[in-house]
């Protein structure tokens, strides 16, 4: 399952993070964003039975821990069902929350600044903000997923425009999730339940689609997130196929990766502190594909620890692709083969 194609556009580099409800680590991470200085902000989500994961962990590529902030709740600076985090040119942070129907803003020192959002389907109203991104003029784009559209706001929450409508036609959206503005300036939307990526101008004009339903090369099953590099290559979190796919600027298949996680620095620290587990783990074969009797990628990923399980967010930084796995509470980093 973890075989790579002959074309090695990306090569595995390292794994970051591990599962933790507090301090170092993260718990059900749903999104990450990286500031120009390399600081990574990882948004955790939590669940009904344990709300401790709803926080933002700060770390860097070298596994230096930078603390955390935020908590579960509905007060200022808190989260209930957070979905995405983004950073603007002044290093302010924005967090979307699909339960509280709002966007929260934090300054560069991670102090809460303000929040906005009213549930509804009218201009400026939102129903399930699921993805965030900013263009090069610091306009904030929100995938307003239950309304099947993209809305654009100023960084203070003033409505600018909206485009898209619910459906599966050209330019229509079905529960869109992650979004990104490419270096070339266009907006790419993970049109989740239509199994495709849609590309628009930032004014909302439809450009083209990428992908179709399926599990073959170039096909997608519930894409959750997309990143685009300077050369126009697309990196897609092919969520329900439990993989990441790379397409070239023409939409042609380039590579698929399934993950090959190793022990992160924080994972090694844990195992060093628990030698009994480390010993038993070292005696184990964590890739027992031959004992599985399922072809369901989700089930397979639950059994095989090194491979992606719920790859939910992809983020490019320098020559690296950061892939966040919600169910494995970690980040796998791949480097471009230049």
């Amino acid at each position, binding site marked *: 399952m973890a075989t790579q194609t002959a074309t090695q556009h990306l090569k595995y580099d390292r794994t970051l993070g*591990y*599962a933790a409800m507090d301090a170092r680590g993260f718990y*059900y991470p*749903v999104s990450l964003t990286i500031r120009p200085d390399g600081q990574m902000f990882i948004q955790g*989500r*939590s*669940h*009904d*039975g*344990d709300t401790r994961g709803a926080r933002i962990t700060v770390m860097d590529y070298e596994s230096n821990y930078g603390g955390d902030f935020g908590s579960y709740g509905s007060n200022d600076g808190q989260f*209930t*069902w957070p979905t995405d985090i983004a950073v603007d040119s002044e290093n302010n942070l924005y967090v979307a929350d*699909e*339960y509280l129907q709002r966007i929260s803003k934090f300054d560069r020192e991670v102090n809460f600044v303000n929040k906005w959002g009213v549930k509804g389907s009218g201009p400026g109203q939102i129903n399930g903000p699921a993805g965030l991104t900013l263009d090069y003029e610091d306009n904030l784009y929100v995938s307003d997923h239950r309304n099947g559209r993209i809305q654009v706001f100023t960084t203070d929450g003033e409505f600018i425009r909206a485009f898209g409508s619910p459906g599966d036609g050209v330019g229509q959206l079905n*529960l869109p*999730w992650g979004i990104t503005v490419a270096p070339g300036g266009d907006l790419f939307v993970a049109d*989740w*339940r239509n199994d495709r990526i849609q590309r628009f101008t930032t004014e909302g004009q439809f450009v083209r689609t990428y992908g179709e339903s399926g599990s073959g090369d170039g096909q997608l099953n*519930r894409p959750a997130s997309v990143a685009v590099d300077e050369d126009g290559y697309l990196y897609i979190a092919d969520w*329900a196929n439990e993989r990441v796919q790379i397409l070239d600027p023409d939409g042609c298949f380039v590579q698929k990766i399934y993950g090959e*996680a190793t*022990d*992160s620095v*924080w*994972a090694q620290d*844990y*195992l060093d502190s*628990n030698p*009994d*587990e480390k010993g*038993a*783990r070292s*005696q*184990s*074969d*964590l890739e*027992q594909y031959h*004992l*599985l009797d399922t072809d369901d990628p*989700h*089930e397979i990923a*639950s*059994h095989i*620890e090194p491979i992606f*399980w*719920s790859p939910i967010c992809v983020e490019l930084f320098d020559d690296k692709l950061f892939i966040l796995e*919600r*169910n*494995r*509470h*970690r980040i796998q980093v791949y480097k471009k083969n230049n």
Partner: protein
Amino acid sequence: MTTTASRQEIKLMAHLMRRAGFGATIGELEARAAKGYATTVEELLHPGEAGDIPQDIIRRYHVDQSELRQPFSAAGNWVYRMVTSANPLEERLALFFHGLFATGYTKLNQARALLNQIEMFRRHGFGPFDTLLIELSKDPAMLLWLDNNENHNGHINENYGRELLELFSMGIGNYSEDDIKEASRAFTGWTLGNVDYMAMRAMKDSIWPYSRIAWHFNFDEGDHDAGEKTFLGETGNFNGEDIVKIICKQDAAAQFICTRLFQFFAADQVTENGQVCIDEMKRSYFESNYEIRTVLRTLFNSSYFKSEEARYARVKGPVELVVGAVRTAGSYTKPTLGVDDVAQQAFFMGQGLLNPPTVEGWHEGDEWIDSGALVERVNFVANELSNPDQPGVRTIINRLTENKESGVTAEQLVDDCLEAMGSLDVSRDTLNVLHDHVAGIEKATDDKNELGSRIAELLGLIGASREYQLA
């Protein structure tokens, strides 16, 4: 207005759906009655597309139901399925086997393995009993729950072998201690992949570094005792499959599984008439090569099951009660923060899904009811059914207020509500209480909002009645 004959058919259909499902409102009962009783039984016995909430939708919103680590998250996932499935008998049967082959979170710390076991019950629950028992014997949750990972060639651990005979297939008195030892020898080598690491993580409740790793069956041939064994009078180089096939040939196995099915689907107590029904089920068991579907068909089509004696002869289990109320109310039909709480409510009433107290499962029947549990039961159902904002409650209100002539009497309104909730029968005492509650309603019926509110109250009150606790 239905005729007397069709009203009897509706009543019978309501009885079937309380047992083979989680109850049904009058709209569903009418639709099913139009198809006929026997046709409905066959539909229930042959599940099609469940039509429940797609898992990708659930997983998107409920991160915990994607990973399925915590028991209440996994239980919430099953609640969604029970609430929205078009195949209620499939879920009831899975619930039956969950109680019979009781496997619990407390020791395992692995909710996904438990939910995978439930899915196995869906796949094999209607099929041959021997196939089901073989799958159960390979089930990773069961293997660890009853220590078969410690059952080695030359050093047997009898726990699984003993419970297989005592609690899962025949019952005490039908085998010897030697049979337990020989069965255990046959199951040596039936274990998990990476068993030492998995068992250690389960014991320590470790999620580190990268959360749970799902379990899978592994037959360790090097640890299997392939020698000759004598079991229930037969001798051979038996393995686990052979043991199960010998078990399923026994009259005791037929008596065991048919009685347990009878008690779950027909009546808590086995009367003389009930035993006649069980004997018919046993004949079906052998004639069909132990197929559970055939046994259930015999039960549901039996004169005993259709008789007045069998009506309201069971105390609803907590999950049955909670899911029935939620289905009627129409709540939790899409991802909703708080679905875990539905599973927790059943836990507070004494039935923690995926977490039975012991390998013996739950003590059912009258033992479901104690004063604390009764308060929880009444409060939950009344809250669900008295909320006019719930879509299912609103549907009932609309049905009862549309074309309603003014001046409806308290008696008519109570009758209509009982009919709408599933053609329920209640005692004279209960009727009096319900009539008193809406006394004077004739004056309010010109006001649809007022009438709707009173109907919602009445639905909640019916949900709080003694009869609603029974199936």
